[in-house]
């Protein structure tokens, strides 16, 4: 195979270099000024609006009061810095049993167009197999290239992880703010849930998946699935927990690289309410952006609400019970009244 010519800066005169500079700036600005488009799939009530609000600084009304929609709905909103965000609210794949060909084609088209695709599933849901079956049927209609692109850009989220109790959450309070931390038994429960969902909705697409992360310049391991260049480390296939552990055992000096590759295919338990795992979710989203979508994404990053930390005053409102001492006729425990 003929090698592509390598052009160094010395091979370009000042006029050519200036044309390249102007061209790159123009294209970067054009890309950055387009609306960032985000598709969010998921059944009614899984917390799509809450998730979008904390991730993108929007103000969609929350609460399941909207009628369920069958058609994908586009909502364009200006971000705080004035750049447009377009959200496609995609009705749950499992909401409609009878998807006709026209509807499936439209659904596929929207997924293919969007910069970011988030599949939100309720952390306590048990009907994933139905949604997975519908996604499979939907993607059967796509040509192989489109199928690979769509599968490769989906970020899977388990929403409302705050509802996975007991075991309890821990509020790590530091002054006026704090962070929610799952207790060890709760973290274990989440891990089991996430592994189940990953098996249901990620693993079946292993042949179409790839994982990417940046190369800090020291990674140089290659095999039939793993590759690298100056900037990027790539794995072809599903970078599952088992695969990650196997590579880490073989090359412990690159444990951080394998951990970052693993980020691509994790199903993340998140909570918009508790601001839990949101930075990890954003890492997953960034890993899957198309070549120039990062310019649009960067414009909205400044608008992102704080990804971690909750004011103590807000945390007080999250307690969902108080204890009434029925003998004394007084409150024995009320989180909202406790003096911190």
């Amino acid at each position: 195979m003929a090698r592509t010519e390598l052009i160094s800066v010395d091979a370009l005169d000042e006029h050519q270099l200036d044309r390249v500079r102007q061209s790159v700036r123009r294209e970067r600005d054009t890309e950055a000024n387009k609306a960032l488009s985000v598709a969010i799939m998921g059944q009614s009530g899984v917390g799509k609006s809450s998730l979008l609000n904390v991730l993108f600084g929007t103000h969609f009304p929350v609460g399941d009061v909207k009628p369920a929609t069958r058609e994908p709905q586009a909502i364009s909103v200006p971000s705080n810095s004035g750049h447009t965000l377009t959200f496609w609210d995609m009705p749950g794949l499992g909401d409609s049993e009878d998807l006709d060909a026209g509807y499936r084609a439209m659904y596929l088209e929207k997924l293919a167009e969007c910069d970011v695709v988030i599949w939100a599933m309720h952390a306590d849901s048990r009907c994933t197999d139905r949604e997975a079956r519908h996604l499979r049927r939907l993607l059967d209609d796509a040509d192989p290239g489109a199928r690979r692109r769509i599968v490769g850009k989906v970020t899977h989220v388990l929403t409302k992880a705050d509802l996975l109790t007991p075991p309890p959450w821990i509020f790590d309070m530091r002054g006026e703010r704090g962070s929610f931390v799952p207790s060890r038994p709760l973290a274990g429960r989440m891990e089991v849930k996430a592994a189940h969902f990953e098996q249901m909705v990620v693993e079946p697409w292993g042949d179409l998946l790839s994982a990417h992360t940046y190369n800090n310049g020291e990674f140089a391991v290659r095999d039939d699935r793993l590759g690298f260049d100056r900037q990027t480390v790539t794995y072809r296939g599903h970078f599952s927990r088992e695969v990650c552990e196997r590579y880490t055992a073989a090359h412990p000096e690159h444990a951080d690289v394998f951990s970052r590759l693993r980020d691509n295919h994790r199903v993340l338990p998140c909570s918009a309410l508790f601001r839990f795992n949101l930075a990890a979710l954003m890492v997953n989203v960034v890993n899957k952006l198309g070549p120039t979508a990062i310019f649009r994404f960067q414009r909205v990053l400044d608008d992102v609400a704080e990804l971690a930390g909750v004011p103590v005053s807000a945390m007080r409102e999250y307690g969902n019970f108080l204890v009434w001492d029925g003998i004394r006729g007084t409150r024995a425990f009320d989180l909202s009244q406790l003096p911190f």
Partner: protein
Amino acid sequence: MIEDDDDITRAVEARRREDTEYVARLDDAVQHRDETAIEHLVRNAVARVVGRVADVGFDVVRNIWNWLVSH
């Protein structure tokens, strides 16, 4: 159930480390995607300017990157 305060301390410290790690990973991931996107645009622009498809050296990318930062 949570066993004792040591369990809580360990869970909290591990979580703080993980949170810090993911904030750093987000910054690094965004920077990396930005650099690769710029390289993608530079490669296309050089091909247009010189009239043929060619790979570009890192010195070209760095030159354009520095210029973009300063403008």
